[in-house]
Structure formats: structure tokens, C-alpha cells
């Protein structure tokens, strides 16, 4: 059964968001990493890139498949996690902690309201 922390927001495409002030940290969910199986490559957006909500901005490759990662919210990328580039398996080991992908400065905090709660995400994945 997947771990779905209640303090995070979620997307239907299996990203999670942790909000602190006007900064959102984004990663992929425990369910997503489990479905992908062993992650072997992560490509992250450049710092400074401006994103719209729903825009494809990163790539994660597992032994089985390649998936685009979509920004759950719009804003500017202010930091990326080099650790997951150097050690992609970190996403499997710590999807909600050390395996985060990027931090984004929110351009429109109201977009957070469109994200899923942990309960609704759990329903979506049939948890």
C-alpha cells in the first residue's frame, strides 16, 4: 500500500507538492515510484525557468519506461535537487523526502486549490 502523507497536495498525474510560504517543493508520489519500478535517470528543469501549471518540465526514466513530469503549479524554478540526478534511485527510496525534484516560487497561489487532498488522491489510485 502506498504512503500518502496528509500534509501534501497531489496531482492526478502523481506529483506531490509541499507548500511553505510562496515556495512549493515538487516530487513524484510513492505510488508513482512503485509503478515505475527502479528509476535510472532524472532530468530536471533549469533554475530560472518559468512554468505554467500542467507544463511538462522534467523527465523520469525507470527500467521499464520514460515519463514526463508536469509542474502542478505555475511559477519560477528556484532550486533543483541534484541528488536525484546523481542517484536516481533516491526517488524510489525517499519519494516524499530526499527524492524531491524542484522548488518553484508560486506565481498564483490560488492554483493550489485545484490540487488533490491526500484523501482524494488515495481514492484516485484506488488505495
Amino acid at each position, binding site marked *: 500500500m502506498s504512503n500518502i502523507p496528509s500534509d501534501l497536495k497531489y496531482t492526478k498525474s502523481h506529483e506531490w507538492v509541499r507548500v511553505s510560504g510562496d515556495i512549493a517543493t515538487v516530487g513524484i508520489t510513492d505510488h508513482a515510484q512503485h*509503478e*515505475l*519500478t*527502479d528509476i*535510472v*535517470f532524472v532530468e530536471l528543469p533549469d533554475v530560472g525557468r518559468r512554468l505554467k501549471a500542467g507544463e511538462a518540465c522534467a*523527465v523520469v*526514466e*525507470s*527500467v*521499464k*519506461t*520514460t*515519463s514526463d513530469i508536469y509542474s502542478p503549479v505555475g511559477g519560477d524554478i528556484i532550486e533543483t535537487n541534484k541528488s536525484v540526478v546523481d542517484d536516481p534511485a533516491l526517488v524510489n527510496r525517499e519519494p516524499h523526502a530526499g527524492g524531491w525534484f524542484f522548488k518553484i516560487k508560486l506565481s498564483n497561489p490560488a492554483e493550489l486549490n485545484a490540487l488533490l487532498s491526500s484523501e482524494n488522491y488515495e481514492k484516485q489510485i484506488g488505495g
Partner: protein
Amino acid sequence: MATMELPDTKTIRLKWPDGHNPDFKTGQFITIYWPDTPGYKRAYSLSSCALDRGFYEITIKRDGKMGTRIVDWAKVGDKFFVIPPVGKFLPVYEPNKHLVCIAGGSGVTPFRGYVREATRRKLETKITILYSVRTPKDIIFNSEFQQLEKENPNFKFLVTCTRSLPEHNWTGRCGRVTPDWIKEIARDLPNTVFYACGPNPLVEFAEVLVFELGVTKEQMKTEKWG
């Protein structure tokens, strides 16, 4: 050996090292990596069968770093490291069984192995592939499956196109895999084993369709590609 199946899809033949004679089963997958990037591995279903000796064949779409490198750059003589075949997505070759294989895109690759083995062994097991592609140009192994249909009276290759355009001149089935289509094909449900391979949404959709027919879990085997 390398064969372009489609502009974005290539079959490569990986010759076994001298003296290597592995025991494996049709439908299994291998994990490969280039010698210069041992930390970066990808798994691919075998598109050859267990009767093919001396080599493995895998059929790869231009997808991700590995898919791009292989489709665009792999050439005869390149060397790969190969982790031997594993997996439980195996054909049930019993005489009275009907294997209904639902495939999406490059998910058809393991079924080439299923049909190859059944045809060469002249098995009575019925095999029907229900293959969902976007357009007729996306059909992998089209001519080979048509040839196998001629050689094997128990095999049928059925294609549906989800985004066929008038210029494709496609006269076959259009739209997604539907419950009615599956029911039409799987007339003897107790003796049918369902297989689904391809992108997660297609496999999950197929699982729902098949379980709605009331079959047991043991009658459904899936291989999700994320």
C-alpha cells in the same frame, strides 16, 4: 543485426557470447546496459522466442535515453551487457486454451515471441492478438504477423486504430478495445487466458474490461510499462 520496424522502432539482435546457452522462456524480459553507462539500465521484453537460439531479439521504440541511443545510434558490432531473462508473463501453451493478447503500441513485442513459438511447434493453442495502435503506420511486425497467420491456422492478428485519418486508407477496425470486441473474440471464457501488455492506462483498462466478463484472476496476466 538491427532492423528498423518503423521510423521510431528498431529490433536489435544481441548475439550470445560463445559458449553461452541460457535456459529461458518465451515472454520473459532482459535488462540491458551499455558498457560505458553501467548505472543506467533498461528492461525490454524479448520479441524473439525460446526456440531462437544463439541470440536475443528486443524491439525498442525511440523513448528515453536508451531508446533514443539504440534507435538512432546502435550499429552492428556494438556490445551490451545483458542481465538474463526473467519474468512471469508467459504463454500457457495448452491445446484447448485460447490466448487473447491485448496490446498497445510497442506492447505487442512479447506476443511476437508467443506466436513464433506456437507456430514453429505447430501447437493447437489458439492465439488472438487484439492490437491497439494510433494509426496503421504504427503497426509493428505487421507483415510478419500476417505471414504467421498464413502459417498458423490457430492464430489471428486483429488491429484497431484509434486515430486513423482518411489519408491512411485504413479499412479495418477503428476506435479503442471494447468489451463487445473482447466478448466477440473470447467465446469460450473458461478456456481463455487474457494477456495485456503496453502503457499502464491500456493495461488497466483491459483489466477492468476482462474482469467485468467474470474471469478469475488466474486467467489474466499483465505487463505494465508505466
